[in-house]
């Protein structure tokens, strides 16, 4: 394929839908990212070393760029609505974690709910993508990944309003979706 990138970015994708997992994995691989896809928030937390291990293990496996042998996660992209812990719960846990809070998090959802979108962005999500996710959405990830690598802290507000813009468009149906337990 020959895309000249310095090192491959590693993205952790979280989605309980098998089809959506396959799609996001393909979209990310097409963009030359390395992908790990899991089907639940608890598996994501386990992968990130957050499931009970944070206190016990002073050297979590995900951590620094210096430890070349260990797993490094450069971005997390997660579905919002999942059984058990939601994508929002995952977002909060990441942002509350000393080790992980600087990893950019992107939320995906099939539902265009402005209050949901705002809540996620306020909690620190970099982007909110409406499903089905397109290649053009994935192309928006690179600046966030580059920012993470360079350890800069510039705010980037250009693309955060996608969900809101869609909401105002007349041909988008707004589902009356009151938060319910997805079993």
């Amino acid at each position, binding site marked *: 394929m020959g895309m000249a990138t310095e090192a491959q970015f590693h993205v952790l994708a979280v989605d309980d839908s098998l*089809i*959506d997992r*396959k799609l996001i994995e393909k*979209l990310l*691989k097409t963009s030359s990212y390395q992908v790990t896809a899991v089907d639940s928030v608890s598996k994501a937390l386990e992968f990130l070393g957050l499931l009970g291990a944070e206190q016990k293990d002073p050297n979590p496996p995900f951590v620094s760029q210096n430890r070349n042998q260990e797993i490094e996660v450069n971005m997390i992209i997660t579905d919002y609505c999942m059984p058990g812990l939601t994508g929002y719960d995952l977002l909060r846990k990441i942002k509350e974690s000393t080790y992980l809070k600087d990893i950019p998090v992107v939320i995906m959802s*099939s539902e265009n709910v402005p209050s949901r979108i705002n809540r996620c962005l306020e909690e620190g999500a970099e982007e909110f993508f409406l499903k089905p996710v397109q290649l053009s959405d994935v192309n928006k990830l690179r600046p966030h990944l580059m920012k993470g690598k360079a350890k800069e802290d510039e705010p980037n507000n250009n693309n955060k309003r996608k969900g809101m813009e869609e909401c105002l468009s007349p041909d988008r149906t707004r589902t009356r979706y009151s938060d319910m337990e997805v079993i």
Partner: protein
Amino acid sequence: MALARLRADLENLVQSMYKEGVLDNQFAQIQALQDESNPKFVVEVVTLFCDDAGRILRELTNHLSQSDVDHYKLDAYVHQLKGSSSSIGAHRVKLACADFRQASDNKNKDRFQEALDRIKCEYYLLRSKFQTLVELEQRISACETNQQLQNAMYGGGSTQRF
């Protein structure tokens, strides 16, 4: 040329599905993702979708047949199916799912049944066409492999590309 004919058949099938609204543009996105590194991507996704949809419809039928209908469960299943339909571009199945969720506002069992029947109807229509699509894709793939072998053995000749 058998390969050209197969490709034309596949193209015609997909175009007719777009025309009938059975598929929408999202399916084109899926086709666009198929490449040399993953030449069976479309078939894989279509197969996954059909397996998943079949499972969900069985669960829905099962839950709806119970005397005490669990509406949350029903809604959750239809939400799943709506999601995967949307992701694969199964336009009419997606719309039928949306109709079902509207029917759930009024918890009338008959309306549920009607809406579920509509989802099934759209899904079976789609599945039948998907089966043909998968067969065509597989025959094209076999034909291409055969042609590549021929070229390798006898040299020369041009390999048809997408």
